[in-house]
């Protein structure tokens, strides 16, 4: 199991300065691949804990997340209230949520799988997988759900791990909510750009009032598509 976190490369956007408005970033993502193909953007976020642990999404995030630019949203849970659900729905109608232990809505599923393009994605909040945040245990869940990309939360810490079976991503907490597991939580969310057998994972973190972006590339090996 190899953790990419320590070796992230800084994002270079065609020589443009990184001081530019981050909200244009979504369009520049398209330009990186010539802009002619149809974009499949998947927003992964969760653990907002509104209103228990945070009043709202950070303003800088809100201004970046505009309706109509995202094709799918996968949410790890712990929204917690209907207002947040409605807000996410306005960003994109294709919304998938897994149940977190503080969610007001008890009918969200414990786990969910969906296929986007060539990738199978799995979604689970993560409090069900003990030890919390443990990679190998999460890998077991990934094998069980039989997915290429597993998205879980609960630890409020962004991580992205690559291993033989695929990728395990934790988008962290979109509001930077308190967590007993992680100290000094920075607000973060993940945007995945799925293109054929390749997915580029962009992580947006709000550090000291500035939005910082990093990216990680994954390519799917064909052996896992045996099923």
């Amino acid at each position: 199991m190899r953790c990419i976190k320590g070796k992230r490369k800084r994002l270079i956007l065609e020589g443009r300065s990184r001081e530019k408005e981050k909200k244009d970033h979504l369009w520049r993502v398209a330009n990186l691949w010539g802009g002619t193909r149809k974009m499949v953007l998947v927003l992964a976020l969760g653990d907002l804990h509104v209103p228990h642990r945070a009043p709202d999404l950070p303003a800088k995030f809100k201004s970046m997340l505009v309706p109509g630019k995202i094709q799918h949203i996968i949410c790890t849970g712990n929204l917690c209230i209907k207002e947040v659900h409605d807000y996410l729905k306005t960003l994109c109608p294709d919304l998938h949520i897994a149940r977190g232990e503080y969610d007001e809505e008890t009918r969200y599923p414990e786990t969910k799988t969906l296929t986007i393009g060539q990738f199978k994605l799995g979604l689970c909040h993560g409090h069900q997988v003990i030890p919390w945040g443990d990679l190998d245990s999460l890998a077991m869940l990934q094998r069980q759900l039989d997915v290429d990309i597993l998205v879980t939360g609960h630890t409020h810490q962004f991580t992205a791990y690559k291993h033989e079976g695929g990728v395990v991503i934790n988008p962290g907490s979109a509001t930077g909510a308190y967590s007993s597991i992680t100290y000094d939580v920075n607000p973060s969310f993940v945007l995945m750009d799925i293109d054929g057998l390749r997915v580029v994972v962009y992580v947006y973190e709000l550090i000291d009032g500035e939005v910082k972006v990093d990216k990680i590339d994954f390519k799917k090996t064909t052996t896992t598509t045996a099923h």
Partner: protein
Amino acid sequence: MVLERAEDEEKWLAEGIAAIQQNAFYMHRALDANNLREALKYSALMLSELRTSNLSPHKYYDLYMRAFGELRGLEMFFKDESRHGVSIVDLYELVQHAGNILPRLYLLCTVGSVYIKSKEAPAKDILKDLVEMCRGVQHPIRGLFLRSYLSQVSRDKLPDIGSEYEGDGDTVMDAVEFVLQNFTEMNKLWVRLQHQGPGRIREKREKERSELRDLVGKNLHVLSQIEGVDLEMYKETVLPGVLEQVVNCKDDLAQYYLMECLIQVFPDEYHLQTLEALLGSCSQLQPTVDVKMLLSQLMERLSNYAASSPDVLPEFLQVEAFAKLSSAIWKVVDAHAEMPVVGAISLYVSLLTFTLRVHPDRLDYVDQVLGACVNKLSGKPKLEDRRARKQIVALLSAPIEKYNDVVRALTLPNYPRVMEYLDSSTNKQMAMVIIQSIMKNNTCIKEADKVEVLFELIEGLVKDVDGIAVDELDEEDFNEEQNYVARLIHMPYNDDSEEMLKIMCAVQKHIMGGGPKRLPFTVPPLVFSALRLVRRLQSQDGEVVGEELPATPRKLFRLLSQIIEALSSVPSPELALRLYLQCAEAAGDCDLEPVAYEFFTQAFVLYEEEVADSKAQVTAIHLIIGSLQRMTVFGVENRDTLTHKATGYAAKLLKKPDQCRAVYACSHLFWVDDQKGIKDGERVLLCLKRALRIANAAQQMASVTRGSAGPVTLFVEILNKYLYLFEKGNPQITSSAIQSLVELIQNEMQSDSTTQDPASDTFFASTVRYIQYQKEKGGVMGEKYEPKKV
């Protein structure tokens, strides 16, 4: 009767117009023939039509316009001396021989206009003469139109600065005096209309008067257009002249209209400099005049003026605008004590808008206005009038919108007092406005006493007031309200821990009285706010948790215990359980073993006694196991007790699959991958074996009840756990154990009695693949896996 009258009027108007046209025709013929005598004769005849008393102002206007048009031709004729051969001086004399006064005066004005243009005599003399002569017509409607005609023809001939008629003793003053005199006379006529004529009903009279008002108001317009009227002249001559007439005429219709005109027509700088005079007159107006509307208009104009450019603001200070306006308003409100509350409040709203524009930094002024409102409302019961309520919401929202900082509003002593007079639903509305402003502007509230004031302001949302039970409220609205309050609790913040603790105590005090419906919303944010503070304290004093500091984690945990305890009254056991676990973990991080143990105990008690729903139990037990697994603070004995309890509960879950999963989760309690972590291989194996037994039992139960054994998922899950702990180096987990488990699963899968389940098939396949992959990795892992044959 009225209808007849109307029909008659139409008839008379038609007759009048016909007569005018006929006479005009002859007049034009005479003009073409340059026959002055004939022209004068027919024009006089034509103008005689205007002598009628039978028409309403509206119809009279039609008639007048016809005549006016024709007179233009006559004027051209008069101007051209070569055509009629009479000097203008003589002409001026000649037209005065006309038989009746009205035609005589119209002709005189026409000639006068030409006379002034000829400059053979000073403009001021002619104008004076004309304005005096018009006195001869005292009938209101006829007189008004005549003077209006005078005004129209003299308009461009006033001896204004820069005009060709200035000079040689003709000055702006003369122009002003002329217009003022015309205005005064016209107003007198206009007022007289109110009292004239028998058999006309009051509304009709007022309607007629309002049709005529523009004629009078035009004079003020003319005055404002005179270039030479500067501030000095306005102050000394124009304004006193106008105001004298306005006050003395003692007619409410005229007073209101003219004051309004005055305010609208003259520039704002002038008003500012003459505030005292204006306001003084306002207090002298008839009691039936709507003074507050006038004052509102004036303040609005001045507010806009202030907003137009910051350079003008010093002027306001210089003339002490606020003092003058506010005292005028207090006087008006006092004088009209019977005025409905909404009237007074809308005045206060206008004054407040003015104050916020002109003196935004003078919070004392803002407070004064609010204080006046409190005075007005005191002694009265809570407001019933919807419009009054709306006005008060506007009054209270204005400072918040202007400053974008609720904290400022909180410092105004009168602010909460005004809110007290609102009925509960408006009070709540206002509270929401306040909260929304805080959220929108990310207002940081730093002091505990401000937090106190804030929560007192929003009291209506935080607890039941006025005996209105919570049940009566609409559920969705209620939830929305409470969510707002919950989000609000995160906003007060201070870097200083002492102050932060005070803030939290203040919040706690207010929300504890909220009742069972509100507590589930308000308790969690407070709890997490406290936990954040604990963490801050942790990092601040490092390893030393000193007792001498007032704000300590220990103190906070005591507070937290109290707060979560309140949830038992709701009751909300699942939420309380989660909060206890959070506190336990936090206490563990602070190395407070007894505190952490106590929190765990509370959580267990809730699990035992209150969490009855089996699905809820599954989640709860996983949370307990997950928390416990991470904690390193417990000594051996305590940890044993807790893990024993947890495992016991896990095994007692209702459904077998749930039992199985919970039990193998417990295996992690005995193997923590830390250097100091517990690594009890035997107990791990015990758990796993127990899980296997349960899985077996589940299979058997399934074959008994459903005729075929259930899917082998559970076995595959347990296999994965074996692999996990095998990799971690648990000596009790041997390759052979894993081998046999793999074979067991393979057998089960091939057995006829097992339900085919593609999910478990793929799961097993990917597990097998994993084993393969680990083997091929080589190195330590590869060696471990070598013996496995799949």
